[in-house]
């Protein structure tokens, strides 16, 4: 645990010392801010503001942001040669991967918490469905964790940050658009299977509409566990490749 904490601290420090992290954060806030403002303008006197508005937007944004947040985690270390030092130190592969993953997730959580400011603004204007908001934020938090875990796998796979980002974006796009598979696959059973494997398939019909389902929590946590396990195995493979 101590080594995980050490790696976590180191990565968090590098996130908050890097101008890229602030650029990503600013871009993130511009996009969520525009969406929030537009939705308020359209909702006046017509309907309540969608409690899952920001989480819904983030399902797509994370396909783009997760690779940017994770591409450097292992790929940069490999490119710089510091990964070999790390692997020869008395720190397990598990600690390295988990520490780095938790730091990325913590940074995402930080960005997510900033967007709660929108709910504070809303609470001054109307009666938001706070339980629904909490449910959808929990959903996107897990969703974000899963996308970051996928990104970490590709960061462990290659020593090129660009290649890592490119490959994880493709993988996340496939996982994201699995929800729309019904538009191209005529067989509804196959479409349902792919839908159940997709990231959106466990967000749109549940967290987004105000339902917290155990199966969706298991899906995201399971995806994280499997992806982190693969990342650890990939890191470990550097010793015997």
């Amino acid at each position, binding site marked *: 645990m101590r080594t995980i904490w050490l790696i976590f601290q180191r990565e968090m420090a590098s996130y*908050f*010392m890097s*101008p890229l992290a*602030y650029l990503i*954060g*600013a871009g993130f*806030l*511009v996009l*969520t*801010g525009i969406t929030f*403002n537009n939705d308020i303008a359209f*909702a*006046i*006197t*017509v*309907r*309540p*503001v969608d409690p899952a508005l920001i989480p819904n937007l983030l399902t797509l944004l994370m396909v783009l942001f997760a690779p940017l947040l994770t591409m450097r985690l292992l790929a940069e270390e490999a*490119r710089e040669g510091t990964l070999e030092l790390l692997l020869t130190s008395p720190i397990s592969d598990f600690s390295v991967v988990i520490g780095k993953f938790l730091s990325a997730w913590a940074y995402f959580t930080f960005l997510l918490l*900033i967007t709660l*400011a929108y709910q504070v*603004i*809303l609470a001054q*204007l*109307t*009666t938001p*469905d*706070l*339980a629904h908001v909490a*449910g959808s934020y929990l959903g996107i938090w897990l969703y974000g964790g899963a996308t970051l875990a996928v990104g970490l796998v590709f960061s462990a*796979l*290659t020593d090129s940050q660009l*290649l890592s980002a490119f*490959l994880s974006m493709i993988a996340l796009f496939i996982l994201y658009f699995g*929800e*729309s598979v*019904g*538009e191209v*696959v*005529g067989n*509804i059973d196959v*479409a349902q299977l792919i*839908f159940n494997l997709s990231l959106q*398939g466990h967000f*749109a*019909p*549940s967290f987004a*509409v*105000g*339902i*917290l389902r*155990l*199966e969706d929590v*298991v899906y995201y946590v*399971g995806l994280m*566990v*499997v992806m982190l*396990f693969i990342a650890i*195995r990939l890191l470990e493979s550097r010793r015997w*490749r």
Partner: protein
Amino acid sequence: MNRSKGLSITRDHLAQIGSIFAGIGLLLGALGVVWQGNITLFISVAFGVGILGMVVWAFFAPQAFKGFFTGRQAQKGTVSLFSTLLLIGIVSLAYIIARRESLAVDMTVDSRFTLDEQSLSILQGATRSIRPIRITGFYTPDQLVQREVDDQYWQLYSNATNGFISREYINPNAQPAVAIPYEEYLQFGVNVFVSFLNPDGTIDPTSTVPVNNNNSQERNMTEAIARLLVAGTFKVYFERSLDTINPIENNQQGMSFLNNTLRTNGLITEPLSLADLVQQGDEIPQDASALIIARPLRQPTDAEIAMIDRYIKRGGALFIAGDFSPIPDNFMAEGSAFNEYIWQTFGLRLLDAVVVDPASSGQSALDVLSAAVFSENSIGANINQQNKPETATLFRLARPVEVSATPPVTNGSVILSSPLSWAERDTARVIERNEYRAEEGIDTAGPLTLVGWANNQATGAKVILVGDGEFMTNGLSQNPQGNNILFLDGVGWLTGFSQSIEFTPQIFVTSPLIFVGGDLLDTIGFVVVIVMPAIMLLVGFIVSLRRFRR
């Protein structure tokens, strides 16, 4: 050590991409074969991509490729692969168990995904039904999200009835023959239905009730189930021997639209001849939930009135629509036996006059629109809805209804004309010269009752008296909608059908966003789009600056 710098793509990178595509392609191909049992185009493409990836991998990194399949790499790789597959298996198992358990928490403050007490009470009644109920949904593959959301609602109904209400989803593209009986609804976007099941487990198509599957899923589904449960328990008779409107005729002067609508709602309709019953010495059937007398052209005989009286005394219900006509002995003319009977029994009667309404009318002042509606019961609840002008009623040459101030039973008005209207007594002038003017002391000043109701709470007898009959014809019953709303809600009130399916609208705590002025919106926009990202950039700039100085 070979370090790649900048954006250069090395042979190893290409080999890595090849190996990834090889792995994904072969895995998808293998899964496809297991799933479908044969080689489809998708599977062929997946295998093709996998093989191509392997070729790329072998071409750009032959040593790594060889090492993967032989020696230490193969051994370690196999262990990693199998341990990963084992973990995927464990996670999949956990997921399958979680999915089967269907554990879900409704997070909405309005409890949108929780059945309320009223629904649960109706569902409790449903489980006492002889036949199980099936919810059938038609969803194409591109409606998977909608199907998943709807299924969460329908699952509540299944769970609340311990599976007595089951669910079935059909892809109309894959099973077009199954969808054909529902085609007329499917083309209008109605894709969910409830039906009773036959003993052999098949759907009883005659019992099918469509469900309006919009945002109020609970209300609509519970109402549909309530309709299904009461279907066949209410029987409405259309009187035919008084030269009334033909409920089967589908031309402009017929009344097939309203008749069919009643049937679609689960009510049984039958014709009935008072004259034949009198001749045969029979009575109005015991199962008559209501008797419709739609624009008769002759007066009922004393024997027919006596038969109606016996029906009323045992709690019968009458819907009487009497039109204006210039003939001397018009139906329910003032002083006629039947008009007097209704006056004595219910405190309502038709007057020999024509309602003229210059303030609330259609093409002429003789086309009278509903100016005011009393919604003390369900008859007028859906007429003259706010911002829906089509829900007004329109009567052409309507007769006023007099409502007794000292009635023998509870009575009242449903629809009134405007205060500027009057009851024109000189009907000959109206018919012959199309002239009308209010004459003090002769004509009755508005507002006038156009539709009245009465209810004998001791016997349960009910009556609705309308001063117009033409509104029920196919030509006028659909335009404006208020005309058919009046008839359907009227019959619903008379038979008790409305009370059986009545379902209080859900009240939502969350409300539309309301605030005044664009300034506040501009301020919010400025804060969330400019200030918040700017603060983030500023912090980043300060951190970078301090780092640079160090």
